[in-house]
């Protein structure tokens, strides 16, 4: 087959470009070479797209948070809506002097920003964008994501230690402690979709969601969402770098674009968490069977996936605009005393309930039973918390009354 520009454009729209290129190149290249070239093109496209969309994400975040707080937000550079504000900011970062603190570990200091961005990009390899449009459909899909995200924690230590600054090091400790703790409920809450879909393939996880897992297992979705907030260090868990209270954290010694790269990685991983939530709990590219259409099915799937992903991303921004920051002890208590036990119990309940449902049951019946058991677990957890809070308040009040009475007695004695 020879190259035809119209055919090529058509394949771009229907997202079958790779099949088209395979056809064209089949005549004069070996299969291995073609696959290698296609892999390169795929990696290049996805990472360039992600690095560029961060420009839009930062603008979106500033604009939305500004609207929530009754401000205008960026409105000067690039027309009425300040669309080019981030471009200007990036240019500023790029032209800034690149400093290296005295006594810094050259290797660790320079490697850390690179590795952070690399780890953030690596995880996108297994995200299904549309039916059959996926980097690699690994047989351990979700597990791969967890492995990469847990290994990426190392880069924070590299940055903190390499800077030769005690505040950076303390910041790195703080960050690693939070990320490692919240990994536990995140892993357990992701086990529930795996259990429901009986597979770790990302495509099969999407395929199993006749009823989205957000409805089948809402409690696990909420646990995952909270841990995702903490894993990306966003409000209300942004005490790692709380701008208004403490020095920035592990990246305090970085300047210019090296500093920018940490931000880049943060936005890419936030978008990734939205994509993961959309894939695992909202049914990914599924939209009432429309994605199975003959020609434009893949395109519809892609659009649906992006709408879902950005809906979740919007909630991330919404929370940032409305919630106050938690204290460090509250952050740890919420994780170890609430999320971890709740997710463990939930996993147990879901596994047992799933076994109890008769084999021939339809997807809707199955989903209903799981939903009920989830709600029971969720609401009983909240009820236990409420009772404890009431008890604590009463204990506090009785202590107060005692103290007041003791003081009154003293006052009376003093009067005599």
């Amino acid at each position, binding site marked *: 087959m020879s190259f035809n520009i119209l055919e090529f454009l058509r394949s771009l729209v229907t997202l079958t470009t790779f099949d088209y290129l395979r056809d064209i190149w089949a005549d004069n290249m070996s299969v291995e070479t073609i696959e290698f070239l296609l892999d390169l093109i795929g990696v290049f496209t996805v990472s360039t797209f992600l690095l560029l969309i961060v420009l839009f994400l930062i603008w979106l975040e500033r604009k939305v948070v500004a609207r929530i707080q009754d401000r205008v937000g960026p409105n000067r550079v690039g027309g009425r809506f300040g669309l080019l504000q981030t471009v200007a900011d990036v240019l500023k970062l790029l032209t800034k002097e690149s400093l290296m603190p005295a006594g810094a570990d050259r290797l660790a200091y320079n490697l850390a920003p690179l590795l952070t961005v690399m780890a953030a990009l690596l995880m996108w390899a297994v995200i299904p964008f549309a039916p059959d449009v996926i980097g690699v459909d690994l047989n*351990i899909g979700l597990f*791969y994501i967890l492995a990469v995200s847990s290994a990426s924690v*190392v880069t924070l230590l590299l940055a903190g*230690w390499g800077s*030769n600054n005690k505040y950076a090091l303390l910041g790195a400790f703080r960050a*690693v402690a939070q990320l490692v703790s919240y990994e536990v409920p995140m892993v357990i809450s992701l086990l529930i979709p795996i259990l429901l879909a009986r597979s770790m393939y990302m495509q099969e996880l999407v395929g199993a969601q006749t009823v989205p897992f957000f409805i089948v297992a809402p409690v696990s979705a909420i646990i995952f969402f909270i841990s995702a907030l903490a894993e990306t260090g966003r409000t209300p868990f942004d005490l790692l770098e709380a701008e208004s209270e403490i020095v920035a954290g592990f990246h305090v010694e970085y300047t210019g674009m090296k500093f920018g790269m940490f931000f880049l990685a943060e936005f890419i991983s936030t978008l990734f968490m939205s994509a993961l939530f959309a894939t695992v709990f909202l049914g990914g590219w599924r939209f009432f069977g429309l994605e199975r259409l003959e020609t434009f099915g893949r395109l519809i799937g892609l659009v649906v996936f992006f709408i879902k992903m950005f809906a979740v991303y919007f909630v991330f921004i919404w929370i940032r605009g409305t919630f106050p920051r938690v204290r460090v002890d509250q952050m740890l208590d919420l994780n170890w005393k609430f999320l971890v036990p709740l997710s463990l119990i939930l996993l147990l309940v879901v596994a047992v309930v799933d076994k109890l449902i008769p084999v021939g049951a339809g997807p809707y019946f199955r989903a209903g039973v799981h939903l009920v058991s989830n709600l029971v677990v969720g609401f009983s957890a909240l009820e236990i918390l409420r009772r404890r809070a009431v008890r604590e308040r009463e204990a506090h009040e009785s202590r107060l009354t005692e103290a007041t009475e003791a003081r009154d007695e003293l006052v009376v004695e003093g009067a005599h």
Partner: protein
Amino acid sequence: MMTQQIIFIVISFLTLLMAWVVVTNRNLFHAALALMGSFLGVAGLYVLLEAGFLAAAQLLVYIGAISILIIFAIMMTRRLMQTTETPFNSQWALGGVTALVLFAVIVFVILQVWPWQPGAEPFGAAPEVPEAVLQGSVVQLGRALVDVNQYVLPFEVTSVLLLAALIGAIVVAWPERKE
């Protein structure tokens, strides 16, 4: 198969190089980083053997947990940037004997399959695994771990061991009650 062999050689070389750095570098933090690189190389070998689950577990457990624990331990116990240590300590004789025994075991295992049979796998190349086998490999691994005829006993013993470690950690960290 040529590509696979080149990748195998590169990965093994990097793994060994990193391991060499671990035992010779005088800067403890750099040694810990090199240890991570070595672990990463082993994960790469697992990928070459089409054992994706093991590779991810290697990444999750060895780099994501154990290495970070080691780095925390180094950072909390040494003076920060001046962590130069002598690579020898009082246990070098015992360590040497262990290394020798391990080397003997590895040589023994290799001699079991040496020399290569004609028609067997070429050097450094993993056997071709059909896609269908790969797809079910994680499920099979899961079943094998809880199968009475396979690994259920080691699996349960390991979980008891881990539970004991967990309880131990809590007991150590428990604040002492005042009398």
